[in-house]
């Protein structure tokens, strides 16, 4: 088979989920109409649906859709593994890669190619994405089991996964952008999956518009990149020193005065795309709201796919950002500085907001923003490999945390339902008694869940410790430690400047991370139940609970052990166990950068192949201290003496007036509303009043008058001139036809006589003329 050649196999990876999407959408998405009741989890009952019939997916469609979706992902998983196997068979993988492409369209002198590329960066994503996605799919079987639109959900996350895999295997920026945008659409539809909820559809619109702003800038960057280099292929740009040098030496037309190169402009444009997609300050506002979607979607967006895609694109394009500087020797380019500032600020900024949240998912959302800030900052310091490493480990433990949090919410809803059914008062008057809706996501309604949901507790604990960077035994420690080590290297060797602060900011952020994680664990699982619902919270029994716990266990495994592929070689004791010769991950990943020999002759290009940062006790100690310290503080404040029901958060006392600020996200949303939304609404209104009604309408009215008058004039002309001619011709033709039709006798022999006459005349002419010609 042609397609089982290693170079062509990657084409098949995204096919499975995409085909699953098509099949589910077109074939197995069958619904039946049933009267709307409270039992359907439309994410909250919608008042408009009273007495109406709503579509509910049939059981058979549900089963088919689940099966097809899972098969699609399994397909992607198997092909990914085959591809990885092929990749390891390639000699000197990284320099030699698996790729195939075809010309998609000719654009003047250059050709736009579409293709696939398997290099080390792709391989690590192919390890992570299919596993995480498969876990999310499995989890969704149980989580969405009672949702009336489960088929649609599977179709959308299949498309989401397909788009992500397309993005991963793409060999050029344009194809990456395609996957990127498809994911944007999917995120819109999935965040607004329960569109009956006002907050959900508003969140969807917010997420979409916010990321669009960044995407437009990114598209500008891509266009400019294509304009300068004439290609969009990664290998042609990132692995080709000539093109990099060209980018560095080109002076952009618009920002030429600012002493920047084309590489810098393009880099910053592309980074802005990531800022939107990976929710960095100041475009982070959409991500906490995205929690309105179903929890598997949150896991998908925050762990496996969307935000990872942002970081992945930065990893991919790193040589472009670093071109012109030398991050390993303290010479930073503008894009690197930009990334370092944005990333480190976001890391700390988001962490501070996380400590004051009461929603179990919101904490995780801010934690995601913070961790993404870590990665961006790492890239900003040239710690390319550390960023990729943290991307992988973070994906695993954040997916785990989200799904565990989803389990908690599911359990809480279950518990609430249980309470209603067995409570003293009847089911119907419940809503009348309680004006507000019970919030199953509020941590202050929980407590003591470790007793009723032990599997969830232990896996959440593992994920939380990994997130906190609990030393040695968790994956998060190793990746975060490497980022801190790189940051320390920059600080210690090249000292001051913007990069000097990065280390401290990240360390502070790490401390806060450990603290809010422990706070969250304590509030959720520690102590005793603060509400009736929490007391009865459980996942139920049977297949549903299995599908919701099994992925957690599998991901917990990765959350612990994924870190050991990247243990530094010179780490005491462990280094010699896990990385006897070289840091495996570091060694593998570094190959996707241009070789030193290749860039040696180009003065403007750095040596892309850095050694792993040397072992230094200071960052390691810092890691230990911030992680353990944060955890201790959290334990001290929340676990040691658990909160009682109705008791206020000790943070409020501790932070005083700062707490409302943090809880309200620094009023960023309000700021944006005042800064952008209101002015644009006002502007729109002014446009309506002055421009539309005043200016344009007046012009239109005048024009209309003129034309009405003209029309009257023409009408008079029409009546006698045009009509005269127009009617005259048909009448003439009619008369002529009437005269002519007398020839049409319907007698076939008469017609033949005419034919003969014609033939005879033609024959005579021929005879006479040819006779005359011959006679001459």
């Amino acid at each position, binding site marked *: 088979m042609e397609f089982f050649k290693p170079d062509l196999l990657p084409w098949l990876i995204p096919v499975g989920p995409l085909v699953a999407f098509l099949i589910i959408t077109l074939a197995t998405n069958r619904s039946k109409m049933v009267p709307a009741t409270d039992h359907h989890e439309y994410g909250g009952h919608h008042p408009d649906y009273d007495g109406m019939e709503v579509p509910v997916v049939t059981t058979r469609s549900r089963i088919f859709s689940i099966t097809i979706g899972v098969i699609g992902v399994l397909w992607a998983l198997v092909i990914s593994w085959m591809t990885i196997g092929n990749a390891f068979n390639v000699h000197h993988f990284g320099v030699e890669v698996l790729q195939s492409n075809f010309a998609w369209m000719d654009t003047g002198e250059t050709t736009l190619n579409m293709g696939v590329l398997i290099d080390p960066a792709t391989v690590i994503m192919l390890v992570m994405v299919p596993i995480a996605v498969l876990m999310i799919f499995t989890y969704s079987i149980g989580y969405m089991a009672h949702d009336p639109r489960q088929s649609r959900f599977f179709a959308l996350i299949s498309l989401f996964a397909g788009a992500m895999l397309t993005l991963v295997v793409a060999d050029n920026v344009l194809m990456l952008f395609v996957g990127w945008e498809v994911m944007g659409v999917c995120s819109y539809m999935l965040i607004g999956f329960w569109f009956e909820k006002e907050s959900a559809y508003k969140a969807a619109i917010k997420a979409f518009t916010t990321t669009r702003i960044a995407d437009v800038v990114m598209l500008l960057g891509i266009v400019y990149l294509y304009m300068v280099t004439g290609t969009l292929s990664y290998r042609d740009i990132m692995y080709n020193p000539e093109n990099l040098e060209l980018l560095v030496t080109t002076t952009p037309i618009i920002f030429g005065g600012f002493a920047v190169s084309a590489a810098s402009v393009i880099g910053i444009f592309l980074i802005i795309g990531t800022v939107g997609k990976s929710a960095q300050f100041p475009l982070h506002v959409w991500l906490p709201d995205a929690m309105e979607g179903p929890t598997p979607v949150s896991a998908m967006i925050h762990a496996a796919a969307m935000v990872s895609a942002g970081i992945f694109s930065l990893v991919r394009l790193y040589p472009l950002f670093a071109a012109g500087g030398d991050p390993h020797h303290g010479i930073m380019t503008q894009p690197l500085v930009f990334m370092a500032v944005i990333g480190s600020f976001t890391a700390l900024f988001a962490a501070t907001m996380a400590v004051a949240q009461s929603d179990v998912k919101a904490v995780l959302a801010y934690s995601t923003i913070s961790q993404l800030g870590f990665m961006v900052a790492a890239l900003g310091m040239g710690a390319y490999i550390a960023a990729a490493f943290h991307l992988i480990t973070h994906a695993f433990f954040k997916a785990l945390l989200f799904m565990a949090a989803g389990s908690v919410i599911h359990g809480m809803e279950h518990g609430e339902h249980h309470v209603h059914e067995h409570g003293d008062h009847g089911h119907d008057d419940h809503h009348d008694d309680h004006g507000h809706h019970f919030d199953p996501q509020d941590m202050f309604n929980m407590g003591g869940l470790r007793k009723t949901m032990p599997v969830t507790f232990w896996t959440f604990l593992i994920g939380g410790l990994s997130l906190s960077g609990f030393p040695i035994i968790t994956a998060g420690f190793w990746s975060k430690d490497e980022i801190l080590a790189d940051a320390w290297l920059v600080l210690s060797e090249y000292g001051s400047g913007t990069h000097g602060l990065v280390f401290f900011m990240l360390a502070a952020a790490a401390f806060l991370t450990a603290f809010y994680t422990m706070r969250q664990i304590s509030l959720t699982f520690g102590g005793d139940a603060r509400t009736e619902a929490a007391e009865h919270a459980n996942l139920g029994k049977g297949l549903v609970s299995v599908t919701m716990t099994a992925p957690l266990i599998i991901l917990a495994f990765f959350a612990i052990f994924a870190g050991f592929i990247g243990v530094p070689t010179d780490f005491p004791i462990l280094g010699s166990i896990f990385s006897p010769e070289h840091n495996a991950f570091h060694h593998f990943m570094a190959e996707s950068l241009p070789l030193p020999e290749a860039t040696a002759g180009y003065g403007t290009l750095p040596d892309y192949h850095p050694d792993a940062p040397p072992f230094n006790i200071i960052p390691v100690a810092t890691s230990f201290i911030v992680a353990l310290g944060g955890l201790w503080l959290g334990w001290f404040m929340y676990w040691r003496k658990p909160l009682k029901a109705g008791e206020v958060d000790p943070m409020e006392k501790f932070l005083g007036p700062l707490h409302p600020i943090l809880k309200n996200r620094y009023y960023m949303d309000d700021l944006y509303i005042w800064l952008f939304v209101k002015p644009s609404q006002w502007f729109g209104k002014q446009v309506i009043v002055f421009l539309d009604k005043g200016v344009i309408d007046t012009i239109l009215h005048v024009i209309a008058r003129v034309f009405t008058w003209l029309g009257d004039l023409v009408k008079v002309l029409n009546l006698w001139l045009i009509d005269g001619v127009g009617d005259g011709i048909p009448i003439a033709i009619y008369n002529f036809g009437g005269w002519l039709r007398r020839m049409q006798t319907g007698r076939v*022999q*008469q017609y033949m*006589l005419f034919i*003969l*006459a014609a*033939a*005879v005349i033609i*024959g*005579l002419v021929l*005879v006479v003329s*040819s*006779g005359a010609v*011959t*006679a001459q």
Partner: protein
Amino acid sequence: MLELNAISIGFFIFTIFTLGGAIGVVTTRNLFQGTVWLMVSLFGIAGYMLLLSAPFLAAVQILVYIGAIAILITFAVMLTRSVTRVDERYIRTIPSLIGSLVLFLILIAGVTIPVFGGHEGAPVVVKTTHDFGLALVDGNGYVVPFMLASLLLTAAMIGAIFIARDEET
């Protein structure tokens, strides 16, 4: 000019058959006699084909025209017998006659006056029926027209049966 031998005598006999039969066809009042005249004419044409060393065509001519088409026409004559006795034979006799005559003159002029292509070709080596059969099934020959012709014939037969079929039965 023309030596008197079997072939030339045959030619004249066949000419009398052909043209006489043809005139009979267009002049006779009785249509059944017309068919017989038609057969006479066709028989003469078969004779020409024999003279032109195409015996296969002559046999097929007799088989197809006299054996099939003429019989068919006879049947048609008999089936429409109640109205075949038309009192007037002709309509538009004079213009038709003039037209035919002028056509005949033009054609004769074309074939006889050397200027207009009265080219005398020497008789070439004769192909046999065997060659003809081979040519019909040869891929470089006439196999496609042959098959198309057979298809045409089948289609025409089916169509004829369909058209002539009684609606009631």
